[in-house]
């Protein structure tokens, strides 16, 4: 199996808090969550978004939702009112992170979303 995008094993949503953003990444399956927990570290997310200049990245775990929540500090170039960027509120950060290529893994089939069905 070749490389895939994070979006094949997870979905998510992002938003702003002043000059900070949060990016929630939610696995489709428990196997996918276990993979995310091990591989999608705060350091990796910080490196991915390095061009946006986050001062630090903190990762929180919500296993009940199969989710990781990343808080990217000082990443919005001033935030809703002051930022000169088109995406002043970090609305697109989750979709950007979901485009991250991830390495092939043996049990990737157990991480994929079943067509049209959300997993319990």
């Amino acid at each position, binding site marked *: 199996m070749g490389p895939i995008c994070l979006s094949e094993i997870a979905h998510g949503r992002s938003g702003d808090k002043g000059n900070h953003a949060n990016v929630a990444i*939610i696995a489709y399956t428990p196997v996918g969550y276990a993979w995310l927990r091990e591989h999608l570290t705060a350091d990796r997310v910080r490196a991915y*978004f390095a*061009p946006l200049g986050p001062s630090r990245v903190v990762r929180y*775990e*919500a296993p009940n939702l199969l989710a990781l929540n990343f808080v990217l500090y000082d990443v919005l170039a001033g935030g809703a009112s*002051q930022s000169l960027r088109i995406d002043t509120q970090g609305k697109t950060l989750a979709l950007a992170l979901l485009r991250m290529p991830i390495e092939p893994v043996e049990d990737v089939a157990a991480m994929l979303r079943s067509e049209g069905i959300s997993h319990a």
Partner: protein
Amino acid sequence: MKARRVRIGNGGGFWGDNLDAPVLLAEQGELDYLTLEYLAELTMSILALQKQRDPKAGFATDFLDVLERLGPALKSQPNLKIITNAGGMQPAACAAQARTILQRSGLGERPVAVVTGDDLLPRLDELLQAGHALAHLDTGQPLSVIRERVVSANAYLGAKPIAEALARGAVVITGRVADASLTLAPAVHELGWAWNDWDRLAAGTVAGHLIECGAQATGGLWCNWKEAPNLEAVGYPIAELEADGRFRISKPPGSGGAVNRETVAEQLLYEVGDPAAYITPDVVADFTSVRLSEVAADVVQVENTRGLPATDSYKVSIAYRDGFSASGTLVIFGPDAVAKARACGQMILRRVERAGYVLEHTNVECLGTGACVPQVIEAGAEPPEVVLRVTVRDTRRGAVDRFAKELAPLVTSGPPGITGYTTGRPPVREVFAYWPALILKSAVEPVVLGP
């Protein structure tokens, strides 16, 4: 006799949201309460300036249109109550106009109550002198650094004064309150929860957080949105809470959109920091405790919510003047659309320089090349055209005014292939920066007025 369950629907997630949504939700949602949320972080600064110019202004006027249109639904549902933070900087003025509209609609018997006391601006110096530093929540800087530029300062009040207002009014209009408290208050009022029953207060807070952004819980923003039928007719969210704290998220039958584990989980984590400690004035809710289950089509049950005692402070949202800004766009067609667009952007800025202004902050973006996350996503192949977007911010209004006049001339005096200049000169807006702080609850006195 306390109710066993209460149905609360949110018909608006921000000022500018769909105007038909609250009416449709009230007609089709079989609601006990309709909530309407209007105040984003910086909305109060805009309302504060409106109030300065006109003592009767300073609230979310959209609400009055909505209230007018809700007339028939309110008439056929005598028990339907409305809770909204549309009061903004002027809840009493908003309530006065709401009373007029209700009377005109033959609903004059519905009492309107007001929650206020959130506005700290008139007391700001007194509070600072009393030792409340209102230091910036992130940087720790004292407010004195920007004191002279402050235009608004509001504490986020909690559910308690709203619940008190519900004992007196069928329509409750508030100033700044925590968004989730708009939902928690009617839950407490109807279900008789105690103000130290942290698990149930957390449950009501989770319900409020899930529905406060309107359609974001029912298919809006959902990553798998293509599976949401009729998103154009999306139903707005309903939380049906039971006395034990369990609740169900749904939407009106037959409406568009979707409610499932994915839409609810995405919204549960929206704009959240530590999910184990979601802090409101009412409780510290632990989002990592909740269990989600799909119990029927477009119905998600949320249970097992845990909470911890509320903190001793309110969050305060302060806005201060921070110069002026303008942003203009032009469409640049190829060849070499990207390089040409960047050259055009620089040309505009250099012309402003030649006019005597070196702008303090500038940004040239080529929309279509990954500008939403610059240098994070590879742009890929050269696009046939891009949108050039030039944005500036400066403490001098004159500098930004001059910038706003330098986009149009490029259409005839720049490279070929420039189009899309149809919207006129970009507006120059005043910038209000955001200053989050905390204040001890003991220093703030929520006030309930009316009817």
